[in-house]
């Protein structure tokens, strides 16, 4: 039983790692058309994430693999139930992966403009879809007695899910803007600095509406907060972290602002996760059909093996992730061999 709890926490950490790391990649993509005015600036933006985005996306692949291994029933019901939505996620993931590699391969301006639009669209739509999926999960899904979700795309697109989708776009745009300010200089950096307050304001406003809507709609994950007081520390921590983002941006300490923004993203996720616990998917038909970290999980033997694999592998992952970020630290320089 303790293994199920550990894996619930680890799964949230993995999703958090994904949202923080690939989140700034998406943010840079969302801002790409808005901020960059010429080819050099666009290349600067692309190369700010160029050497690291692929490693960042691995967190998503890991999340999928872990869900498959550890909570296979949730994986199967979610992926087959959200069929068309996940198909769209795949389309944008495919386009984003090739966009970064393909754009720089030809010099033509039409060629590059097409990929610039593709970079923006794939990043923005990915953020939107992931947000909508989170929103739909928080909202509760029509899990039936068989443990299946039978729903079409438009039923998933509730106003609340759409709100969380737009909020995610705003959040990652803000996160990506802070990253860009760290990684760039000159005009592009100045322009990003001008936009950042609006992005922060937009995100905070949307997120506030999201919280009010969740309470007003009485969404299942808010129940715990009405019953117990201690889980409030997590949304409170997210609020404090957002305050810290604002504080550090005022003082032009952008690395610390980025760290605070990362903590904020993780805390929002944890706040949602605590509300859901022990459910992975809440049924809107009957709570008895919920898929939980117990009834959706693999057996203990698999959970132990997976934990051993994670304990052996993750220290290496952290070590060379930090190493690679260190080597590519400092401002982006665009070279002939760059994207």
């Amino acid at each position, binding site marked *: 039983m303790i293994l199920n709890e550990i894996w619930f926490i680890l799964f949230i950490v993995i999703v958090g790692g994904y949202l923080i790391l690939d989140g700034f990649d998406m943010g840079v993509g969302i801002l790409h058309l808005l901020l960059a005015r010429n080819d050099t600036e666009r290349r600067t933006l692309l190369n700010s994430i160029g050497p690291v985005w692929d490693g960042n996306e691995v967190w998503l692949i890991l999340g*999928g693999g872990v869900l498959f291994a550890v909570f296979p029933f949730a994986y199967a019901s979610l992926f087959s139930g959200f069929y068309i939505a996940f198909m769209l996620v*795949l389309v944008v993931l495919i386009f984003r992966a090739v966009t970064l590699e*393909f754009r720089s391969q030809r010099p033509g301006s039409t060629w590059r403009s097409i990929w610039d639009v593709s970079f923006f669209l794939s990043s923005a739509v990915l953020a939107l879809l992931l947000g909508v999926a989170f929103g739909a999960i928080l909202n509760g899904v029509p899990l039936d007695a068989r443990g299946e979700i039978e729903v079409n795309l438009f039923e998933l697109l509730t106003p609340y899910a759409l709100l969380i989708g737009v909020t995610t776009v705003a959040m990652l745009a803000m996160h990506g803007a802070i990253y860009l300010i760290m990684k760039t200089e000159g005009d592009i950096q100045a322009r990003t600095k001008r936009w950042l307050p609006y992005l922060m304001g937009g995100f905070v406003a949307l997120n506030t509406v999201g919280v009010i809507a969740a309470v007003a709609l009485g969404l299942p994950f808010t129940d715990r907060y009405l019953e117990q007081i201690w889980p409030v520390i997590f949304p409170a921590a997210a609020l404090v972290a957002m305050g810290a983002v604002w504080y550090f941006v005022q003082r032009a300490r952008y690395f610390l602002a980025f760290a605070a923004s990362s903590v904020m993203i993780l805390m929002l996720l944890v706040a949602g996760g605590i509300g859901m616990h022990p459910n992975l998917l809440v049924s809107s038909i009957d709570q008895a059909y919920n898929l939980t970290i117990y009834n959706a999980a*693999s057996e203990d033997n698999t959970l132990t093996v997976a934990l051993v694999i994670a304990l052996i592998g993750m220290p290496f992952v952290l070590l*060379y992730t930090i190493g690679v970020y260190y080597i590519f*630290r400092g401002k982006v320089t665009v070279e002939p061999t760059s994207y």
Partner: protein
Amino acid sequence: MGLDAELLARLQFTLTITYHFIFPPLSMGLGLMLLVISGMYLRTKDPKWRRLSFFWVKIYGIVFAMGVATGVVMEFEFGMNWADYSRFVGNVFGSLLAAEGVFAFFLEGGFLGLMLFGGTRLGPRMWFGASLMVVVGAHFSALWIVMANSWMQTPQGYQVQDLPLPTRAVMTDFWDVVFTPSFIPRILHVFFASWTAGAAFVASVGAYYVLKKKDFADLGRAALAIALPFFILFAVANAFVFGPESARNVAEFQPTKLAAMEGIWETQQNAPAYAFGWVDTDAGTTTGLAIPGLLSFLSGQDTVEGINSFDVPPDVPPSEVQLTFQSYHLMVGLGMAIVPFALMAAGLWFWKRKLLEYRWALWIVVSTVFVSLFVITMGWWVAEFGRQPWVVYGLMFTAVATSPVVSAEEIVVSLGGFVLIYVLLMALFLYLLNAKIQHGPAPLEELETKPVEDLPDTLRSIFTARGEGEERMVR
């Protein structure tokens, strides 16, 4: 007319896995050749190797991007189209996919940036090191995937549990799951096939330069000199050692697949192997050029069981006899055909470099990369079609592995989407690849921003040197 969701899901899987499986073998094989090329630079300091490294690493980037883009589809597809399969095998199969993420993808993804952009930032030894990590990661990835697939071919180390419902396979022994009887022969077969394709790719472009591009003829000869010996070694080893070893393994553990591979309908002693042929699945006959006793000889089985004799699970009649038969014969036929051509090329090469004068021989070298990749595809088809009607041999039928809530119409939509996107991607990929090859390796002066001696070439110097941005701030 009602659409068949199972058939559509299978069609989609065939399309997406066949397409995806073009790229990982190239990531491994081309990666290995890149290590050879940059290793040559480390040894000789001849700038032509460095120029070739920059050239091939760009192509590696495109290949890798295609592999990533089409690979993530596979992980999603299990849950989307094969939900009941995922529920049944999650305990076992899922863990291997998760392990692939932890041990392989982070290694590849982490170091890819350093490999693609390290040429102008890292000294040659450190660049080689970064590339080595990516290539090792690519091999780890194949290791876990072939391991997972081998469990589907020859499952063990599990127990079927009914309660709580639904029925599922539960892992009883991790090491039994890792080392299923087919794993080691199959992974070696895959590695050697991938290396063959990678060496063929480099040799193929080299031969093309000698034939068509005067400016790069010298570089083309260098590429040929380095890639041809490896190509010959890998192709011959696979044709004579690892291929037959895989076939013997199938004979021992998957008799129904063996029967489908050679279209053997009746149990017989001294079973023949066909050079080529056609299976009539309705009549239950196979016609073609049969070589008596060859299958019994190659598989080491005096008596080969026929398709008609299988009636007790796990041995049920294979359902894709024609596809398995034809894929197998194309794989073996073309795989063996590579050998005499390889030996001929070697003979011409070592015989006073005559190869470079025979244009027809060079054109054959150009074609090897296409042949190698086609042979790999056929091999994958033998493995997968030959296992049908099982998705997990002897344990779960493909027909009951689908997603209950996904309709045929939804699969039509996603299948149509994949066809459109994949055709577009292939067109772009070939266009870019062709443009890169036509443009040729750029001169080092166009690429390098600093002399190679000034680049940090020890771990110590990398982690103590100030970053470029910091230098600028100090100024």
